[in-house]
Every structure is written in structure tokens, then in C-alpha cells.
């Protein structure tokens, strides 16, 4: 309970810091640069959740424990939501900074591809009647899909012919390599931690909800099959009286 209060205070502090942060220099609209506090953390954290989904997918395939399937699904859902937030905040910033919502910049392209890949995960998951088959196939897909993520994030944007048209420039290196102004660093990194905790909390709640639903479905199936008492299943010998 205490940690929830602390999280609430930290989130409130983040919102206040967002308003108080100075306008950035070197941007077309300096005020709009504050959006990076809510653009960069989701972009970084969605990859972390997709990695976690792949780990849980592998564990499900190895153990067939449904708990890992619930974790894999929850991680993809939270990762997808974060990816969507990063895309939308990026589009708003692109409109202010570059004059259009979408420019086919290398980073925009890679995050759009990630969104499409994980949207396909849900299409696969809903396409099976059997819950076990849905769990196994979507776990395998979550793992397979993550294999492309390093290529999308680290390799493609660094190819010379793609880098030439990149509008992000060295923005990512600046954020990771500490090239940001100190006032922005002081807001960005705590925001990253707050969003991580909020996302982890949402993930935990989603896993609990999925496990409760699974338990209720099992109990329902048991009740509709007549319970687990022996006398409803055991066939006893019966005497058939001869007709006189």
C-alpha cells in the first residue's frame, strides 16, 4: 500500500517537473520538446516488455505452464500500449518539429513495424479454438517476432543509405549517451523510472486477472462436467432380473 502512495507522489512530481522544465534550445518549437519526457520512456520500455514476452514465451514452450502464457500475453499487451504511446507522441512532436505527422524517418518506420508485428500477435492468438494451441503458437510467435527487434532498432537506422534521410539524427545517442541538458536529464530519467513502475504494476494486475479468469474457467468446466466426485464417473455393475 505504501509503494502505491510513493508511486502516486512520484507520478505527481513528474507531471510538475514536466511543466517546470525549460523550453529546449535548437528546436523549431522549444516548448514542444518537453514531449520527449513522455515519448522516449515508452519507446525504450516497449522493447523491454517485448523482450520479457519472448522470455515468457520460451518458458511456456519449455514447461507448458499456463502461468507463463498469461505473463507473455500481459507483456505483449503492455508493450503494445507503450509502443502505441511512443508512436503517437512521436507523431505530435514530428508535426511541431518537422512540419508533418509522418516522415518515414528510420525510427518512425521501425516503431511502426514493431506495432504491426505485435498487432499480428493478437490476430494469431484469436484465431485458435483450442486455448493450449493458441498459447503455444502465440508464445512461439512472440519469441520469433522479438528476433527482428534488434535489427529494427540498432541495425537498420545505422545503414548509410537510411541514415542519410534520418530526421532523428543523433537524438537517440544524445538520450542514451548523456548528451541532454542537465535540466532535461533530471526530468527524463525519473520519468522513465515512474513509467516503468506504472507499467510493471499494470502488468502485474493483468497477469493476476488472467490467472483468476483461468481458475474460474476451470472451476466452471468442472462444475458443468458434474463435479469431481467418484460416484458420477464410476460405472458400477448392475443386476438385470430375468423376466418371468
Amino acid at each position, binding site marked *: 500500500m505504501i509503494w502505491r502512495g510513493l508511486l502516486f507522489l512520484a507520478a505527481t512530481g513528474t507531471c510538475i517537473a514536466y511543466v517546470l522544465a525549460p523550453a529546449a534550445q535548437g528546436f523549431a518549437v522549444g516548448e514542444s520538446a518537453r514531449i520527449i519526457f513522455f515519448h522516449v520512456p515508452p519507446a525504450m520500455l516497449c522493447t523491454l516488455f517485448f523482450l520479457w514476452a519472448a522470455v515468457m514465451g520460451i518458458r511456456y*514452450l519449455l514447461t507448458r505452464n499456463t502461468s507463463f502464457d498469461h505473463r507473455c500475453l500481459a507483456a505483449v499487451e503492455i508493450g503494445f500500449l507503450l509502443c502505441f504511446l511512443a508512436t503517437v507522441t512521436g507523431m505530435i512532436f514530428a508535426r511541431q518539429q518537422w512540419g508533418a505527422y509522418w516522415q518515414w524517418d528510420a525510427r518512425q*518506420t521501425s516503431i511502426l513495424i514493431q506495432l504491426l508485428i505485435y498487432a499480428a500477435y493478437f490476430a494469431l492468438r484469436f484465431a*485458435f479454438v483450442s486455448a493450449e494451441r493458441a498459447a503455444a*503458437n502465440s508464445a*512461439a510467435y512472440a519469441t*520469433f517476432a522479438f*528476433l527482428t527487434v534488434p535489427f529494427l532498432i540498432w541495425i537498420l537506422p545505422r*545503414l548509410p543509405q537510411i541514415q*542519410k534521410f534520418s530526421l532523428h539524427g543523433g537524438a537517440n545517442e544524445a538520450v542514451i549517451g548523456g548528451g541532454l541538458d542537465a535540466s532535461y536529464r533530471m526530468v527524463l530519467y525519473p520519468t522513465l523510472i515512474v513509467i516503468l513502475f506504472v507499467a510493471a504494476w499494470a502488468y502485474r494486475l493483468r497477469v493476476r486477472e488472467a490467472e483468476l479468469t483461468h481458475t474460474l474457467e476451470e472451476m466452471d468446466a468442472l462444475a458443468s462436467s458434474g463435479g469431481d466426485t467418484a460416484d458420477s464417473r464410476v460405472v458400477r455393475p448392475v443386476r438385470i432380473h430375468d423376466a418371468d
Partner: protein
Amino acid sequence: MKSDWTAETFAVLRKEAITELRGRYGLYATLLFSVMAVTAIGLASASTEPSPALAAGMFWVALLFAAVTGLARTFLLEEEQGTGDLLRLWAKPGPVFWGKLIYNFVLILVVSVILVPLFVLFVGVSVANWGLLVVALLAGCAALSSGISVCGALAARARGRSVLTGVLSIPVLFSVVLLGVGAVSVAFGALVAGGWPSVAGLAGISLVFLAAGPYLFAGVWKQ
């Protein structure tokens, strides 16, 4: 044990080849699709001479859709014809995956070899670097065939499997297409750097798909 594995792989490959020769549906449909794609591209760009980068993009779009149309059939047909369960009883997952993958690789390589002269003739591109083009096509076809084989296997027993295979494999293969466009545009004469680094990226993604594919396939095949 190893010889058993190899023999099973080649038996699956032989089965695919015989099925193809009996029906001739897959290769014929895929090739015809490629020819139609080139015709459509040629018609759309009839009044202009496309730049090497645009021609490379169109080439990879044609190759991607030909691959999605033709390659996933190897897994989908097993379930549609009801032969999947027999194959599960008869063979281990590894040889099934590799046998079908090799067949798919050969099929898409044939399609790409036919697409290149069609592009030269009808779209008006000229190949400036044949070595780069050949290596890029080999690496790209390996990535396409392995990616679609895994996605085809995952979608094979789902509802709406034909559409679902495209939905699963196209976004996963976008990175392959982007790397392929980077390499082929340089091979078509684009004056930019990055041809060989793109080929290295293609080879890397092919190796990753080939390394993970059999394990993921084994996780879902016998369920």
C-alpha cells in the same frame, strides 16, 4: 542417428518436390504472380524511368508477395488435405522443418532468378554490380523462406490460415525487405554506400531465423 535425420529431411524434400511435380500448382502460380507483378509495375511506371532505389523497392515488394503467396502453401496444404497428422506420426519436427524450408528456399530462388531479367526487360533497370545482387538474393531468399516457413507453420492450424500467414509474415519480413532494398538498390546502380553492410544484415537475420526456426517449429508442430 544423424543419417536418419538427414534421410528424413531429404524424404520430406522429395515429398514436396513430387507433390509439386504432380500438381505444378505452386511453382506455376508463384511464377505467374511474379510476372503479373512485374507487368503491373511496368505499366505503372511506363512513362518514367524509375530510379535504382525505386526499382529495388518494387523488386522486393514483388518478391515478398510472391513468397507469401507461394511458400506458406507447404504447411497450409498439409492441414487442408489432412496429411499433417500422418507426417507428425512419421517424422520428427526437425527434418519436417528443414525439408520444407529447403524446398521453399529453392522455390523462391527460382522466382528471384526469373524476376531479375523481367525487371531488366520490362522496368528498364540495369545491373551495375552482379556479385552484390547474387549474394543479396541468396541471403534475402534464405531470410524470406525461413521467415515464411515459421509463420506458415504457426498459422497452419488456425482459422483463416491463408490470410493469417500474410498478416504474420509480412511485418516480420519488413526488416528483410528494407535490408534487401538497401543492397539491391546499390546493385542496380544507386550511388550510395551501404550495399555490402545491407547484405551482412540480411545474412545476420537469415542466420537468426534459421537458428531459432527449428526450435520454435518443434514447440508447436506436435501439439
